[in-house]
């Protein structure tokens, strides 16, 4: 949590673990639905790598769809490929980047 001139009162409110669990679940549901994955949300771990073959093995086309869906549902903006690569590692990294959870 960076203390900057832009920090607001919301920054000082601790994030409830329940909120984070719910957020992770929403992200998994969104991935399954938006990317038409042939698995259930429960089969996605919080730290399962999204793009490596050992993980979900998604491709760049999925990544773009995920970027669009995350922006639409959570207002998460991933303006460039570098940012997207860093955020779209696993469910946990996505959850941490969502504005209301940051």
């Amino acid at each position, binding site marked *: 949590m960076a203390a900057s001139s832009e920090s607001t009162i919301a920054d000082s409110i601790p994030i409830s673990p329940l909120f984070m669990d719910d957020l992770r679940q929403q992200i998994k549901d969104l991935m399954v639905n938006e990317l038409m994955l042939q698995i259930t949300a429960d089969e996605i771990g919080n730290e399962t790598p999204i793009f490596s073959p050992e993980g979900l093995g998604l491709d760049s086309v999925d990544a773009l769809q995920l970027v*669009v*869906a995350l922006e639409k549902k959570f207002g998460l903006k991933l303006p460039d490929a570098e940012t997207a690569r860093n955020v779209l590692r696993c469910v946990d990294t996505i959850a941490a980047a969502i504005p209301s959870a940051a």
Partner: protein
Amino acid sequence: MSRSILITGANGGLGLGIARAFLQESPDNHLWLGVRTHRDAAIEMQSQHPDRVHLVELDVTSSLSWDLAVETIVATHKSMDVLINNAGHHDDQLLAMMTDDSWHKVIDSNLTGTFNGCRAVARTMMGQRRGRIINIASLSALLSPPGQANYAAAKAGVVGLTQSFAKEVARAGVTVNALCPGYIDTPALSAMGPEQRQAAIAKVPMRRLGRPEDVAAAAVFLASDGAGYITGSVLKIDGGIF
């Protein structure tokens, strides 16, 4: 359900023909006619259907102009349903004599214009999980005639772009297809003299020039629910030339 349909190069013979076909197809179709230098015919169409036809300023070679146009449509209509990338021009010259200006302008209006359009609507359509893009290529993309190195290259580029982009957005429920009209009887073709015109007709097995409605019917079909599983297709509309 009401649909927003953006047609670029809407003041030309083909653009107007496509606009007319969508107007006739359904009262739910709302047309946005992209215009730049010429707009007389588009203004006339708007005056006849003020509730369903809108004009939008659009320089297809400028990505900024595209962003503004799409923003306007989405702000008004809340969705961007169909894009017809129809704007373009040809400037025929033999390659050995072709000027830099002729090459670049033809590539810009036909190929870069189509790229800009596809990119401008991509995220909106993907977010909607719905969208239809129809790129007007040309028979020249497939049967490149002499004197059209610039135009044939640009339109072949449109075909390649269409097929690549179609794969990228297929999962998002967006389809992208290309139409390749042959000789279509439009004001753009009237630059031909009577002899050239006869020579063109002689090449067509159906022995007639195409009409804008022939191309428009295919565009309406590709934008329809029934065409939901068709993407990356390249459809010739040419009276049987091959």
